[in-house]
């Protein structure tokens, strides 16, 4: 046996012994840990491979003789054989070319990071989750959602108690306040409350049918405003029946495509105000069309629950 194999075995055994003594044989050892086992297995494999690879090449230097066809080029007596390129290299070279083409044409353009792309994915994922979790909620949960949207978006003007903060916004605990009704009767309105342009005439367009279609008078305006602000009760009912009920209905519940509900809040009304905003005697309300349909429904439910005194 060649001396070099002996040396190889001696070196390998020494290294493995040192490894054993410093790790496995010492206190604690491998500790039954799978990661430690892998590490030590890798160390052992490395020792064996290194030793025998070195032996292989050293032996090759010792015994190998050159053969093959020399190329014509000669540099100061040093020649070169004709050698085929190793197969592995050739395959890797071609694979790299293919990968580079793929990366240039598809890989980078399709997969590159974009902040806006990430944002769009976030929004899509959120909308999907929202749809799954909340699309079918009703009743109490819908009102709760409405309250949280209200607290985020509406309370800055309408106030925590939805009372309109001393008249700077509409008091949502009642359907209509006296001053609002009076202003609308005198000046008319056009607030897209039905989703489309359905202007209500000003006072000169309002006739009292009970008094031979005479234009509505100041006293009648006060009376009917009190009546509507009182929740369709008290005095002034006859004026309402004469001048208003033809569009708003006998009970003030409104008519589809004709006039909005002025007796109570309903989903269509609140949704339309959120979609189009509003401008009236109190001031302007901006549109909140960035809320999604369910959130608008929820806000409606919350406002309806408020005006019922719940």
């Amino acid at each position: 046996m060649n001396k070099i194999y002996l040396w190889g075995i001696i070196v390998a055994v020494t290294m493995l012994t040192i490894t054993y003594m410093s790790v496995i044989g010492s206190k604690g050892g491998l500790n039954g840990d799978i990661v430690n086992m892998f590490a030590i297995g890798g160390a052992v494999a490395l020792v064996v491979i290194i030793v025998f690879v070195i032996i292989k090449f050293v032996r090759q230097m010792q015994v190998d003789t050159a053969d093959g066809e020399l190329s014509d080029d000669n540099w100061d007596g040093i020649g070169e054989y004709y050698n085929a390129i190793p197969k592995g290299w050739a395959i890797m070279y071609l694979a790299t070319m293919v990968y580079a083409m793929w990366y240039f044409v598809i890989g980078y353009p399709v997969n590159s990071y974009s902040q806006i792309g990430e944002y769009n994915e976030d929004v899509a994922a959120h909308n999907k989750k929202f749809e799954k979790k909340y699309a079918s909620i009703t009743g109490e949960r819908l009102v709760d959602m409405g309250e949280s949207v209200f607290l985020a978006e509406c309370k800055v003007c309408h106030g925590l108690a939805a009372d309109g903060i001393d008249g700077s916004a509409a008091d949502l605990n009642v359907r209509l306040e006296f001053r609002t009704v009076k202003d609308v009767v005198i000046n008319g309105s056009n607030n897209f409350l039905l989703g489309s342009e359905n202007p209500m005439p000003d006072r000169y367009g309002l006739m009292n049918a009970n008094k031979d279609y005479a234009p509505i008078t100041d006293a009648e305006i006060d009376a009917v405003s009190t009546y509507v602000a009182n929740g369709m009760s008290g005095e002034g009912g006859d004026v309402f029946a004469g001048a208003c009920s033809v569009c708003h209905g006998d009970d003030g519940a409104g008519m589809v495509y004709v006039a909005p509900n002025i007796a109570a809040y309903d989903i269509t009304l609140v949704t339309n105000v959120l979609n189009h905003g509003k401008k009236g005697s109190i001031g302007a309300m901006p549109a909140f069309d960035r809320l999604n349909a369910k959130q608008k429904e929820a806000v409606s439910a919350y406002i309806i629950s408020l005006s019922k005194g719940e």
Partner: protein
Amino acid sequence: MFHWLERNPFFFALSVFITISFAGLIEIVPSFAQASRPLVGTTPYSTLELAGRHVYIKNSCNACHSQLIRPFKSETDRYGHYSMSGEYAYDRPFLWGSKRTGPDLMRVGNYRTTDWHETHMKDPAAVVPGSIMPKYTWLYENETDVETAYAEQLTIAQFFSTPYNKAIPMKDGTNKIIKMGDSIAEANALALEEAKVIVADMKDQNIKDAVESGKIPEIVAIIAYMNSLK
């Protein structure tokens, strides 16, 4: 020449610097010019809005309020569409803000109204319970400096070709013209005209009277600026 450069480190460094600067110039400047071009629908500030912007800067509003909506769901839910660079084309200087002690104001004109600002600026805590924003009562007394705003308009129209008195295409296909006066008197008249539109929605009788008599309190200018942020 290259051999000469290799023997002279100073000039070698200099030529490296020039080469890299030139590369930077042709790479960065065109894309920067593209990104800083105004979006369709972005208009320069009118006289009163610009005066309001000066009031905003003077009172350091930007120390607490940013004007930059980042593309995160949590931000776009609160403040609206994320900001795009072209929207700042006419902002000199931009007012991105140093930090958000208060909410972002990039699109405040979309969801707050004139009368809300009026009551809010007088006593923020009365409108938003727990608000730590101080009262800005002097805005209701100080008079707006329209002349400085006009001077700025003249300057940017001349040096940056800001399109005043020119048709600017809007998103819906129409054109909009932002007017700039030919003289200080005309600028004052234009600002007053804008102020009258704002005070029509305000409640404070003193402010209404002031505008009626030809004066513009700062609150009117800053509301005009707030309403223009969309």
